[in-house]
């Protein structure tokens, strides 16, 4: 009887387990995102890492010199 019950609930249990795991993962993700938000980690990453990196890149870019272009009327 006990064996049968555990067998019939095993599918349900599996589904529950999957949902449970999914819920746990989503809850952990939500909590992690909240931590990023609350401690302004997105701002710190952008300010200290992304912006300096991009600025360095833009400063090094080769650009055409617009003054080389003749001034005339089209």
């Amino acid at each position, binding site marked *: 009887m006990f064996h049968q019950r555990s067998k019939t609930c095993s599918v349900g249990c599996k589904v529950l387990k999957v949902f449970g795991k999914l819920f746990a993962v989503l809850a952990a993700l939500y909590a992690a995102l909240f931590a990023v938000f609350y401690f302004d980690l997105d701002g710190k990453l952008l300010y200290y890492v992304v*912006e300096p990196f991009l600025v360095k890149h833009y400063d090094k870019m080769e650009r055409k010199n617009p003054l080389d272009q003749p001034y005339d009327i089209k």
Partner: protein
Amino acid sequence: MAKINFKKPDLSKLKEIKLPDPRSIKLPTLPKNKDEAKKLAHDFWYGKPHGERRLGELYMDKTGLYKHREWRGVKDTLYYFNMIWLYNYGQMVADIMKFGGPVLFAKGLWRYRWLGQTYLPVLHWFDRGLEGLRGEALRASAWHYRAMTCVTINQFMNMFKADANLHNGAHNDAWHHSIAHKETVWGGIFYPWSDKYTNIPMEMIPYFVTCHVNNHTVMNYIDAAQSLGLPGDPCPMCQAEAGIFVLDDMPDYAPFVVTSNEACDGSVASTAIQDWFLNVPLFAMPQPMQFDDPLVQEHCAEEIRECWKFIEEQTGAPFNWELLRQKLERQNELQRFEWEKWDVAAKTSHYPINGVAQALYRIYQSQYGDHYIWHDTDRRVSKIMAKCVEKKIDTFPKTRHRVIAWSCAPLYYSNWCTWAYNCWGLNTIINMDSLMFDMTIRTDKLENTVMDMARYHEWAPMRRMAVGGMNHIFELWENMERFHCDMVMMYDQLQCKGMQGVKGLFEDEFRKRNIHAIWMPHALPDKRTVSRAEIRRIINDYMSTVMQETPLDPSLLEFDDDMSW
């Protein structure tokens, strides 16, 4: 075309990151008695009341970053996290997917400084503008920011779709179906072709919006213009707009361009440089400065008709009156709702939009022209506003003074009014730029429409009141009465020769009328001339010495945000 040499990022820079000393973060202490426990639980659930928040202690020194974002109580913090922070990051991704895709975005990001440096930290722009807000004011103001973000993404993705710089120099179909124009040319001029052609203002995204979001970027362009040998004292807006071209940072996205003398002669000068570097057919559509003369009005309407002829010649597509009429009707809807908003702002204390959201949304929407997101936003805000009025919600309960802000605002510190409310209870009800396009446009017949469009154009930002003549600059007095304001924040754009010329007249009038006015000096986009800390100091001095008031939040009196976005 810029040559791109990708190099691995220098990860040793990571060591330079200065995270806040954990000891500087104040953790809540355990309550000593039942009352303290109750207070702590109350503050956790509802957030600290205004006056106990000490928002200035949240900042990290110099950067304006937060040690941690503000705790606004459970409901508002979760609203901010879910419906502002998460929602807007998600919507930004969705907008990029919708308007052209991540590859195009990445190419643009890599190519253009104004995109990469400016728009990634956009959520911090939200934070700065929405500091201290609660309840319906937080919700309504945030929707305004969402709309502006959406239109910004839409515009730069449209630029990139057509940009020859991102398509190996090829002029694709999108390039042939784009119209470039100065940001001071109202988008409504192009409504008759809006079913087939996309009009994109040249400087609105690379220049104007960047100053609000990340003011570091614009300094590159100001300095670039001066590197040509141009003097440093003209309007920095025009310098920056020209500097984008000098630095070769303008997408090549359209076969012709429409320019204007808005707001003043400075724009004509920057257009001369842009014309040189763009090297495409150009139509200059000047508007008269002293626009009260009816003969001048006819002349302005004729300029618009000539512009339409030019577009027809360039595109080969005929003028579509029905489309113009439909789009103007939609724009008139926006104006009618704006009047509703002004009505609530003027006559009640239930207006749920703070000073910076009001100012930026209104100038953006009325200058850019019709867009679906403005209608979506107005529908949402309308519901929030109706709720505030029905339930008589006092949206800014710590208001000590109702402020009207006049003349042109500092773009690098547009959120000063959020600070001023939190620190001093100065609630900015309305500002000059919001009141510019104070009209709907007749759509019964073309002659009336063109005359109204001419008037609309003459009433553009920095034109109608700022350089539009004495009668108009002094519309301040009637608007003070209309909006029941008891104080003026008088912007003092140090490099605007027009407004500098009337400073003395204003001072005389303020004295004569016994009006409390604070002069706020600034140099429009350039924070190096007058810093944000200096602006705060001037307001602090006036409030403590002249008004003899004490701050609501003393932690906001002085802090160093010199290097902040």
